[in-house]
């Protein structure tokens, strides 16, 4: 059965192959290749354009990443003013708050419950108020 199948397979398409005018086919193929050489050039140009676009994206991306990295290295780290408050005395803290009091609405300041006057607050409470001003 395998032999029969293979014999059949060998005959398959023989008629179509015999009908083919090989010389004419070769002539037509050469003519078509001659008539349409632009497509090959166009393909090459497209390929170069794609490569150029990919290079631009890669270089642009690299520059952007580099700038981000350098930028983040050069930037000052976040600094909280409240961290410097530990060295201040009660009077100095009060002066700072008085200055702030003139600038900022008291509604946004978390004044400890029961206190209405900054002079009544001790150093710890004053620090807490200053920290709350920093948000």
């Amino acid at each position: 059965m395998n032999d029969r199948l293979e014999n059949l397979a060998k005959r398959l398409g023989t008629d179509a192959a015999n009908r083919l005018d090989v010389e004419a086919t070769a002539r037509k193929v050469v003519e078509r290749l001659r008539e349409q050489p632009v497509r090959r050039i166009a393909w090459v140009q497209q390929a170069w354009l794609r490569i150029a676009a990919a290079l631009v994206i890669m270089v642009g991306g690299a520059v952007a990443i580099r700038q981000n990295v350098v930028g983040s290295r050069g930037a000052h780290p976040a600094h909280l003013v409240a961290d410097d408050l530990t060295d201040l005395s009660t009077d100095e803290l009060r002066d700072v708050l008085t200055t702030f009091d003139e600038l900022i609405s008291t509604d946004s300041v978390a004044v400890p419950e029961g206190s209405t006057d900054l002079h009544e607050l001790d150093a710890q409470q004053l620090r807490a108020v200053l920290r709350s001003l920093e948000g």
Partner: protein
Amino acid sequence: MANPLPRTDAAPDAELIAAWRTGDEQAAAELVGRHARALARFLAGAGAPDSDVDDLVQETFIRAFRSVDRFRGQCRFRTWLLTIGGNVLKDFGRRAARRKVLPLDETVGDVTGDPHEHAEAREAEAMLAAGLQQLPRLQREVFLLRAQQGLEYEEIAAALATTPGAARVHYHHAVRRLKEIVK
């Protein structure tokens, strides 16, 4: 166009391919002459309508010559050409499906010899052709490359980017299914 290099008739395909790469049209024409009939048989066996075989052969050669830089001698030029033919036929099938044109495969060839024997042979071939259409593409192509074109599994595997073992399995699956159809 480059001037064609003097060649003997026995110039190997590799030499003709190298000549075509430099623009030698005569080399291209010679490659067509060498492989067009085998390609036509393969295409017809794989289901190309007889009336379209010529166009499909041309299209296959055009594609092959335009992408010849991708041919690195991994298999013979003819085998590589046949796999391109398979792709061309697949694209043709898609276009035909979109146009909803039914292939006219029942073209009558020249009837010579005993009409009865001829009819029987025709019938068996038609059954095989119909059976091949029921196979997955890879099985069909492996079967044709092996049974019709007489290629070794190593050669088929190199052309279809698979292993000789896998090519052998595809062939046996194809044969088993075709035996059920062509009894």
